């Protein structure tokens, strides 16, 4: 039961990150490999603001602003020139951006792990199991953000424009939708989600280092692919599934050393059965 809650909590974080991957993929048709590193930058922003002000709220705000700007900036500088080029070229550039962010952070903050003191609100005893409040908070806020995002996409004008762009970019631009603007907006929202994820991440794991984003990034990427990249409910399901599996594996001593292998094995298995993930749409190339 504890394991399940821990898994849900981690899964919630993965799902938030995976949402960023999946939105960008759905709309810009590219894998933003550097998404995990935006979380890392967010975490450093939280750390720096906390060190300067000592309060959590400005830290969160600064993190969201920094990440959003960074997301938009990378899109402008690195990805927009490649719009229309081979998707693999874009993927390789994204890997480059990921390395760039990591090495720049290392040059600024050093390679070491820096502890961050953020929120410990104790535990809640419930039916014999103790759950930390921050886990509950993480889980609750993740759900709220996801619901909010779904509403945004289905109920607002910008949201429907996003859907239109992801359906058919050419048609959308003919309908007078500013495609580049929508893509920038997507990057902004994805990066803001990453900033939220970085705050939740720090609540669970209170330390920052330049490689902080790499593993959660790859895991969330895996989650997004498992759920079917481009699908928002898919990202949520994938993230939570992966989080629970990771925690179940590490609670079983025999499987613990193979945790990563099992998660990736699951990914391969799902892709073999359903090449576009659990909830992905199949796209056929027209001949």
């Amino acid at each position, binding site marked *: 039961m504890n394991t399940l809650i821990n898994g849900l909590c981690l899964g919630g974080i993965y799902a938030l990150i995976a949402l960023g991957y999946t939105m960008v993929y759905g709309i810009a048709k590219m894998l933003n490999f550097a998404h995990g590193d935006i979380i890392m930058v967010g975490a450093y922003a939280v750390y720096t603001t906390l060190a300067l002000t000592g309060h959590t709220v400005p830290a969160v705000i600064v993190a969201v602003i920094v990440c959003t700007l960074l997301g938009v900036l990378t899109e402008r500088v690195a990805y927009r020139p490649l719009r229309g080029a081979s998707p693999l070229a874009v993927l390789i550039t994204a890997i480059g951006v990921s390395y760039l962010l990591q090495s720049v952070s290392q040059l600024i903050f050093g390679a070491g792990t820096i502890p961050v003191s953020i929120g410990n609100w104790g535990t809640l005893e419930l039916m014999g199991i103790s759950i930390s409040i*921050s886990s509950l908070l993480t889980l609750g806020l993740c759900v709220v953000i996801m619901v909010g995002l779904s509403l945004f996409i289905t109920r607002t004008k910008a949201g429907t424009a996003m859907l239109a762009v992801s359906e058919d970019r050419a048609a959308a631009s003919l309908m007078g939708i500013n495609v580049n603007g929508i893509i920038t907006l997507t990057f902004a929202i994805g990066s803001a989600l990453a900033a939220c994820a970085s705050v939740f991440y720090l609540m*669970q794991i209170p330390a920052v280092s330049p490689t902080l984003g790499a593993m959660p990034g790859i895991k969330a990427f895996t989650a997004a692919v498992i759920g079917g990249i481009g699908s928002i409910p898919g990202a949520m399901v994938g993230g939570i599934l992966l989080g629970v599996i990771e925690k179940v594996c590490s609670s079983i001593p025999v499987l*613990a050393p193979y945790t990563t292998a099992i998660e990736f094995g699951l990914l391969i298995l799902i892709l073999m059965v359903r090449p576009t993930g659990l909830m992905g749409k199949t796209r056929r190339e027209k001949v």
Partner: protein
Amino acid sequence: MKNFTRIVCAVLALTFCLLCATACGEANYTANNTTYVIGSTGPLTGDASVYGVAVQRGAMLAIEEINNAGGLNGVLFSFEMVDDMAAADKAATGYTSLFEKGMQASIGSVTSGSCASFAAEAEGDGVLFMTPSASAENVIETGENAFRVCFGDAQQGTLAADRLVETYSKIGVIYDTSDPYSTGLYEAFEAQMTKLNKVKDTDYFVYSFTKETNKDFSTQVSELKAKGCDVLFLPFYYTEAALVCKKAAQLDFNVPVFGCDGLDGIKDQLDDTVTAQVSYITPFDVESPDADIKAFVDAFEKKYGEAPNQFAADGYDAVMILYEAMKAAGVNDVKISAADLADLLRPVLTGGTFKYDGLTGKGMTWTVEGSCEKDPQVVIVDRD
């Protein structure tokens, strides 16, 4: 096209000659030495950099002290350290560059994995090294010139088991299956627990993680809490251990935490949310009343502005041991080759008469295998 081909050939030929010129090096790299050169590799970047930097600082302090006292028969010492990021292949590259810079004796590598690689290289050239902190058993097994200052993993793991069963009845253990240091400690611990007739899953409970899952310890901690453990044994490095402590505090699981020398440095990583008692095995006590240690701590704080940890003391000791051994062997040639120096030092170190009283233990002697025999000066450091 012919012309073009010719030009390309000419350019290639030119590169030939240039490369040849740089590659021709005679084996005697120490011929130009004006000081005795001691070399080392260690992680100066990355997660283990605290240890590398500490060893570097301790060693530098020792060199300074030796040189201030006039060196060896008037010849000064110098110290070179290359960053290996705790990776085996970089340690090998680092070793060769040091060797070619005229390194005569070495304090090896800081971490176990790279020191194994370092040792394999050093063995080929007959370089003697005295590693301050590479505690894995295979490090000193490579050859007759490999020595170390610290206790081996086996010694520490066994000691931890003995200590813990004295006071606690249900021990929770977490270890890193992908790290040689951590698995070495755990295996020794497990062996000793078996010897003490303790049963896994009733007297002690074990969970593990890997390099890829070394951030979120919620499962391990909550499982151990559910099992009702009264102590946590964390045989790994302090960055991860700090995360375990914080997670335990978050889950209101404030049992004492016990670890080995890898926990040295944890103080800076903890904040006031952690109320549990944290203690670890270390042969070096900053607050010891011992005069030598006091002098070292003062000098270190003066120079670097912070208190030394065990690795700094190990690094200091390692250099000092080499110095004392060279003095005892009567070394008197600044251009002595590394292999010749090793042949002089080895009999001294293993001869039985050479004893060294250091910061990390009194009356150190070395076995032929290279492990250090010293009074088990074990200190349990409680966090303030």
